[in-house]
């Protein structure tokens, strides 16, 4: 656990800041010269920048193999006030390097994929000039994510934490002037804004946790905090509990857990590579990383663990029910992501850090694969749509574009794609089996570890997660039958075309990783390589023996779910315009699933509208009508005018007319000036101040 701060020059550790510098350089080059570089140039620069970050990450891993204790590489001081000492310092250990490898590895593949994807996307959206901007934002994301995973204190982590939020905002709103179907609209920018603000709510929790941490433990630096936490847990366990709960709010924001998950489905407004990289594989796992990183705090109290694990498990099940009722190919994957993040959060909540991180890694592979596969499907349909439009005659082409709102993401428009898009189909199958938890694909191993741990320590979590696992296999089965099997339900699907190599090659690599990724941590004696790798950071870990019962039950559940989906969606394939076969038997339950249990509407009613009303009331009624118009203009001004009149007429004329004739004139002039709001008043006011000072001075001189 103790890190070697004295000698960061060991091995390649000194290079670690380049995981941030490289993408920053890439984004600067593309921001300033993007227009001149051309699309290939821009894509190349950005991919090389991400690739360089990956290379540096690999070098860190190489050095860690020699020095598993890791290192802290200090770059400079950040904020130092009194006992507050925050540095720009990178922490290289097995946990952070795992994240670096996933982020930059998957990130680089997605950069390459995006060159092909965005080339087509900007043309479908009629705005090729926006191409470079995409890669600027993508590099920005990599830089921020690297800061997040490599920071040596909670505040540097927070810099990355909000930085990825910004990148996410920019990329969700990449097509900020339209909706997901390319029509002029506020929809995409609303989705972006929603993501940012919801995340800010989470960040509020993070901040409060940070304040508690600093004032009770005296630091933000990981080692110092972890060293002090056990003592605090004995003296004030309630503070530890508060700290973990507020941190959990932050996790709920970033990792899309109940109650803050609502932004993630909307985030699918971003181009598909964004959904894959940020909203599935990497950024949303930041919360899981945060808890794993904070293991020495979360592990202190059973209550903290119980709360976190339950939130994760309930989210896993809840989101899975919604995924069953969706028709948009990316929405299904979005809710699936929320659900899988629930698995991870439950795992790290239970203290099964290895299982949680293991699932984080495998999920990054297969969920990136599924999203990119979905992106390939969407592009294939767009191509088919254009193809079909062309064949309907040239005259109607332009009109078609405007009138018809063809949704290339709607699974009801698909069907039979396994023939027209074979590569995409096969890789998608691998992803599906991995996510469904089928032996021996990656998801099987990692999910099984979570379930095993739950069955031993938190039975209620085990039951909830098992139900979620069943639904997972079911909605993926439903999706695959609807998309790739049966007959085409739309002419666009009929004429769909396979994607080019720049898209399919990253898919194939990810498919390989999704198939074999589980072998990094086989649950048998003598294996557990990934667990042992993390032990260097997390301390000694007990590995529960592999349980055939748990694995068998989960496999049976998955196979049963797939069989059920086959019965419902494949035995009699969905026809064009036909309602979902589940709608009838489930009745109202399905309406709830379809409509996401009306949570968005509820939030709108509970939070958004009241805040609008409150802001309007404060601005219009309180600040303007009452304070500005009434109090200032009526009470103050009119009151002063009235007083001046009173002084000028009855008092002055009757009483001290001659003595202070000049004074009343000045006041009357002032009052007039104030009422008419003319400049004359100021002069006389200034005069009266000068006279007043003169009078006091005179008195003092003569006394």
């Amino acid at each position, binding site marked *: 656990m103790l890190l070697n701060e004295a000698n960061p020059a060991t091995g390649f550790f000194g290079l670690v800041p380049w995981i941030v510098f490289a993408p920053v350089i890439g984004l600067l080059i593309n921001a300033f010269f993007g227009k001149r570089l051309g699309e290939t140039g821009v894509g190349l620069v950005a991919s090389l920048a991400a690739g360089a970050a990956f290379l540096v990450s690999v070098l860190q891993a190489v050095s860690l193999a020699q020095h598993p204790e890791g290192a802290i590489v200090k770059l400079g001081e950040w904020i130092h006030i009194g006992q507050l000492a925050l540095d*720009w310092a990178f922490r290289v250990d097995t946990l952070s390097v795992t994240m670096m490898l996933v982020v930059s590895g998957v990130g680089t593949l997605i950069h390459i994929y995006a060159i092909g994807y965005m080339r087509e996307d900007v043309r479908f959206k009629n705005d090729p000039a926006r191409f470079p901007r995409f890669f600027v934002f993508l590099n920005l994301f990599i830089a921020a994510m690297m800061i997040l995973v490599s920071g040596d204190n909670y505040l540097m982590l927070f*810099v990355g934490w909000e930085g990825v939020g910004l990148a996410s905002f920019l990329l969700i709103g990449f097509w900020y002037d339209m909706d997901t179907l390319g029509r002029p609209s506020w929809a995409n920018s609303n989705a972006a804004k929603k993501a940012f603000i919801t995340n800010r709510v989470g960040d509020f929790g993070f901040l409060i946790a940070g304040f508690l941490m600093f004032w009770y433990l005296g630091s933000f630096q990981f080692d110092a905090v972890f060293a002090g936490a056990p003592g605090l847990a004995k003296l004030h366990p309630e503070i530890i509990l508060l700290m973990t709960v507020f941190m959990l709010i932050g996790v709920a924001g970033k990792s899309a857990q109940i109650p803050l998950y609502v932004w993630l489905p909307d985030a699918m407004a971003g181009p598909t590579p964004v959904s894959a990289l940020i909203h599935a594989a990497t950024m949303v796992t930041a919360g899981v990383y945060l808890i794993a990183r904070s293991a020495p705090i979360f592990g202190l109290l059973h209550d903290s663990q119980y709360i976190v694990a339950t939130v994760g498990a309930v989210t896993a099940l809840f989101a899975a029910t919604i995924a069953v009722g969706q028709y948009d190919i990316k929405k299904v994957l979005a809710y699936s992501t929320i659900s899988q993040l629930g698995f991870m959060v439950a795992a790290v909540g239970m203290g099964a850090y290895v299982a949680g991180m293991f699932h984080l890694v495998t999920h990054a592979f297969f969920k990136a694969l599924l999203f990119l596969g979905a992106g390939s499907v969407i592009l294939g349909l767009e191509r088919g749509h254009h193809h079909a439009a062309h064949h309907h005659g040239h005259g109607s082409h332009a009109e078609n574009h405007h009138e018809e709102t063809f949704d290339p993401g709607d699974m009801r428009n698909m069907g039979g794609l396994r023939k027209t898009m074979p590569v995409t189909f096969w890789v998608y199958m691998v992803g599906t089996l991995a996510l469904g938890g089928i032996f021996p694909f990656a998801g099987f191993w990692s999910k099984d570890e979570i379930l095993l741990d739950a069955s031993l320590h938190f039975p209620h979590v085990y039951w909830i997660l098992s139900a979620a696992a069943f639904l997972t296999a079911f909605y993926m089965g439903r999706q695959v039958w609807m998309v790739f099997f049966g007959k085409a339900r739309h002419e666009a699907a009929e004429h769909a075309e396979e994607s080019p190599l720049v898209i399919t090659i990253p898919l194939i690599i990810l498919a390989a990783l999704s198939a074999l990724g589980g072998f990094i941590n086989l649950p048998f004696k003598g294996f557990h390589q990934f667990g042992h790798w993390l032990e260097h950071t997390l301390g000694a870990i007990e590995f529960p023996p592999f349980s055939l019962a748990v694995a068998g039950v989960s496999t049976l559940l998955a196979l049963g779910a797939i069989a059920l989906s086959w019965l419902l969606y494949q035995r009699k394939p969905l026809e064009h315009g036909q309602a979902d076969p589940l709608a009838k038997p489930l009745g109202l339950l399905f309406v709830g699933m379809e409509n996401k249990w009306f949570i968005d509407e509820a939030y709108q009613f509970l939070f958004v509208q009241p805040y609008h009303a409150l802001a309007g009331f404060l601005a219009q009624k309180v600040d303007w009508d009452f304070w500005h118009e009434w109090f200032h203009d009526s009470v103050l001004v009119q009151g002063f005018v009235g007083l001046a009149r009173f002084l000028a007429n009855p008092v002055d004329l009757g009483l001290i007319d001659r003595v202070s004739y000049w004074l009343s004139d000045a006041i009357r002039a002032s009052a007039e000036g104030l009422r008419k709001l003319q400049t004359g008043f100021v002069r006389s006011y200034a005069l009266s101040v000068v006279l007043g000072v003169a009078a006091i001075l005179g008195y003092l001189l003569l006394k």
Partner: protein
Amino acid sequence: MNFLLEPLSIVTFSPLLGVLVLLFLKSEQKAALRWTALVTSLITFLISLWAFFFSGLYNPANGGLQLVAKYNWINVAGWDIRYYLAADGLSILLILLTTFLTPIAILSTWTAVEERVKDFMLFFLLLEVGMIGVFVAQDLFLFYIFWEFTLIPMYFLIGIWGGPNRLYAAVKFFLYTMAGSILMLLAILWLGINGGTFSVPDLVAQGNIPADTQLWLFIAFAAAFAIKVPMWPLHSWLPDAHVEAPTAGSVILAGVLLKMGTYGFLRFNLPLFPEASVQAAPVIGWLAVIGILYGAAVSFYQKDVKKLVAYSSVSHLGFVMLGMFALNAQGVAGAILQMVNHGLSTGALFLLVGMIYEQTHTRDLPVYGGLWKITPIFGTLTLIVGLSSMGLPGLNGFVGEFTILLGAFGAGMKDGVFAGAGGFWLAGLAAVGVILAAIYILYMFQKMFLGPAGEITKHHDLKDLNWREILTLLPLLVFIFWIGLYPKPFFDLMMPAIENLLMPFQAILMAAH
């Protein structure tokens, strides 16, 4: 005339040389007038840099007053009024902020101000003298003169070059500030007569004012400063003044003039009336928190961009007050830094609003929309400045806000000044302001730059920023990043003085608990 050769005298009065040149130029020579003002303000900026960093006369590690210029001025009837200038860690950043923002503001008027250029520049340079004077004066009487003096040029800047409702706004600005100042003047006279001197350091050293008297004096000073800040609920003049002021006026108003209020608390209220400050801290803390939330909510409702930014100042300055009255190192350091940050980011926001207004002549949010596509540079810079304003980590606003909130939270701990007065709730609610800031900034950014093209975007042939405009903003952006990533040099400048400032409070708080 020796007193005029003192470094701080030169810094303070160097704009007058430009005034002198301006007087010899003709009103038609607009280019020459503009260049004269710009070059003068740049020279003043360079002199201020020289005085603090290159003259060898100022040692940042020293927490006391330096570059002292102390001369007898008025000695009658036992009054001891001095020409007393000095600077320390509490004021150095604000002096530099003033000399830094003035040339930027002047540059922003290049094409925006076409009428009466000569008068405009005259007033602007005179205003700079007054502002620097406020931050360097160590004699209460001298301070009061500078304080009141700033009103006159600003009054005319709003009243002559302002929007349609400018006279109303100008008079209101003048009267509100003036009204508060009267009470302060009385308190100043009481202090000067009672203490036998108007020199602030001497008065602080005497430190023998009974606690209940302190409270009255505290209130009298606070009246002047709280209006200037402005603290809720005394902010009613601010939206008027901001909306009507010309761009350069808004920049200086937000950037520097409001800081005169917060600086006043820091320089006078805290050291002169320490017991009263501790007593008043919870009240001020709660007013600040109300201001943070209220300003943010009201800002969100505005349709006029300038008004939105104006109300956001109420929220931001709430943070400054909260941090300052947390009375611990983090809070006060954050407050001082946040004064600078607010000057940079709100100044930049007003500049940006002014730049688009010059083309469209409207600030009505609903008519914009989709601007980013047409003016990418303008959009990107607005985004960066907006993010700075809402406290994105890595940019300047975060460093200030975070340290303030951290300080405020610490003040809720058992030896803190907010303990027993809502304690953690103060900091917790203030932190909600961070969420609300994201809401109004993103709302503004979305309505202007995102979404489908609005009326203005469609029908105007809008141009992106030109080189002069980029050059105007660039220095601000440099500091937005610099302070965000490496604030150490800025904190180093203020920390010794803050330690001196806070020394007495530890004893008072110990005694109180």
